[in-house]
């Protein structure tokens, strides 16, 4: 069983909601990432999604776009992101790491070469925003061969029939995008999320985590009641971006404080 599945199953058996957090590797500067990752774990994060910066992040709102731009200004790449994972694994062997990004850097790296290098670096899964199941076959083969989970998005516009098909390709967990739009948008509607998740019903045994637009403990709590976990990203990236001129310790602490608040709200569920 993959590290992602173990962690999510364990949380479920404890009646605990999973907290997944997204930060962009190298944002606002490369040295900030590693201490922030460790702080996230310390504050009760179950899975870390590490954003791989891309020049054209089509599905991101302005906050995460700027995170990508800040990281790219420091020449952060997919390769250097694997380095960060390797460093992280020196002291943490239990927190799953998921890379989240776009197809082109992975394609440039080479699917097979990437899958091997990522597994070696201690990465557990990959979420490529712009690789739907129809286009993923070759990459999936490489990920499967290296034991990496392939995580897919489900959207408010996804039909039940299609959701079943996506679920049949997925492993690790299913990521439900809580709104029509880009990351960090401001129009999350808890009732609509519930209606859609009810419509999907039980697609597979895979846990479902919900993200996009979850910015505060109260929303996180309300959404968590409907799913196995929540994903929080933009609110962290926004904080990190606003502290570009501050020390990595201060950045890690500030992000940790936000996440700690959300963790406490989830444990209250």
């Amino acid at each position, binding site marked *: 069983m993959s590290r992602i599945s173990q962690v999510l199953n364990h949380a479920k058996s404890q009646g605990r909601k999973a907290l997944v957090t997204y930060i962009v590797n190298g944002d606002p500067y490369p040295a900030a990432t590693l201490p922030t990752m460790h702080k996230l774990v310390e504050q009760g994060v179950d899975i870390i999604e590490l954003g791989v910066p891309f020049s054209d992040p089509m599905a991101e709102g302005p906050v995460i776009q700027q995170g990508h731009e800040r990281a790219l200004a420091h020449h952060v790449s997919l390769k250097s992101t694997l380095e960060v994972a390797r460093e992280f694994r020196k002291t943490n062997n239990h927190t799953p790491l998921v890379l989240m990004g776009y197809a082109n850097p992975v394609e440039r790296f080479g699917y097979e070469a990437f899958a091997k290098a990522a597994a070696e670096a201690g990465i557990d899964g990959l979420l490529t925003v712009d690789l739907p199941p129809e286009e993923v076959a070759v990459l999936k083969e490489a990920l499967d061969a290296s034991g990496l989970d392939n995580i897919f998005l489900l*959207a408010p*516009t996804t039909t039940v029939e299609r959701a079943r098909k996506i679920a049949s390709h997925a492993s690790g967990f299913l990521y439900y995008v809580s709104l029509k739009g880009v990351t960090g948008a401001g129009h999350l509607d808890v009732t609509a999320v519930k209606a859609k998740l009810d419509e999907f019903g039980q697609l597979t045994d895979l846990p479902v985590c919900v993200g996009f637009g979850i910015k505060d403990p109260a929303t996180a709590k309300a959404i968590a009641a409907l799913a196995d976990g929540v994903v929080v990203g933009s609110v962290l990236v926004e904080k990190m971006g606003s502290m570009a001129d501050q020390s990595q310790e201060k950045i890690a602490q500030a992000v940790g404080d936000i996440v700690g608040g959300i963790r406490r709200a989830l444990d209250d569920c």
Partner: protein
Amino acid sequence: MAQTGEETVSENKQSSTIDYSAFPNAEGHFGPYGGRFVSETLIYALDELNAIYSRLKDDPDFQAEFDKDLAHYVGRPSPLYFAERWTRELGGAQIYLKREDLNHTGAHKVNNTIGQALLAKFTGKGRVIAETGAGQHGVATATVAARLGLKCRVYMGADDVKRQSLNVYRMKLLGAEVFPVTSGSRTLKDAMNEAMRDWATNVDDTFYIIGTVAGPHPYPQLVRDFQAVIGREARAQCLAQAGKLPDALVACVGGGSNAIGLFHPFLTDESVSMYGVEAGGLGIETGKHAAPLNKGVPGVLHGNRTYLMEDENGQIIETHSVSAGLDYPGVGPEHSWLKDIGRVKYVPINDDEALAAFRKVTRTEGIMPALESSHALAYVEKLAPTMSKDQIIIANLSGRGDKDILTVAGIDGITV
């Protein structure tokens, strides 16, 4: 020969080994290129568009409405003009210009926006969005939106807003909102990112009118089909006027919609050579260009797999061209495939060469071409003298140069 034109076609079709009409396949692939590389939210909208287009593309009523608009609103057919003086001067092949510059709104772009606006009407969506580089597609979209009473927002790179101020104002006069995009390289690719984000957010009531033969399936197919009127007309006109098929076709390629529009109806005519002209910018060797088919590698951007300009980490790099409409790091997937199979040759033309052709054709023929089209004309300057006088070149004069006057004046150091 004119009378036997039809027979020539069928002969060529038999001898051709590739059935070009079978591309893209159901998944939107042209060989390894094309496809649908978008976030999950947009899949439903693409499925919906694909279903509508599959139903309407062979529907005689839809085609009749499209043809009627092209005739009475756009002013088609556009002339195929024999550039006699320029031909004499170059001393080689006879040069014919397909006059897309004479279309309503001044470029080939309107052929496609008319078609997509008809599709939008069938979806019942009340809002259209578009991305634009030079502003020609933005103007063409704002135009059809005005005519149909649709709300319209056009995304345009902030740098392009500056260098194409005339078109920006035209769009505003037409009632469109022009949204300057300040992210990334502030040009066409960033405008397209922003349009995709808008579409994902407003997918229920918004129709995205993509301006070129790129993007996720079915856009490369439907934009090609709408633009193929250029080649169908040019083929019939050449047979009627010259009594035979042309020997060579030349068109500029940014995303590649005017080129595919001209080329596609000729693909099975094996005697017809085709040249797609990319923006060589300051020179291919300088790295400051927009010529992915000459210097790029296959990758994934804006919903399709195609040749791209990118660095060793797969990041898309900034492009350079004197013409905003060619300043794009990708290209339509069908062009990538036509390059690989060798059916079309793709060549670069530098800024300087394009500007020289702009001046030359303006002075020699009294036709002021767009800087985009001037790239194609600059290649004609090289190609025509290598061909014999009984041979024929058709160059696509895809747009008129009025919009570029301030750019050219600026290069001349003149404030207009």
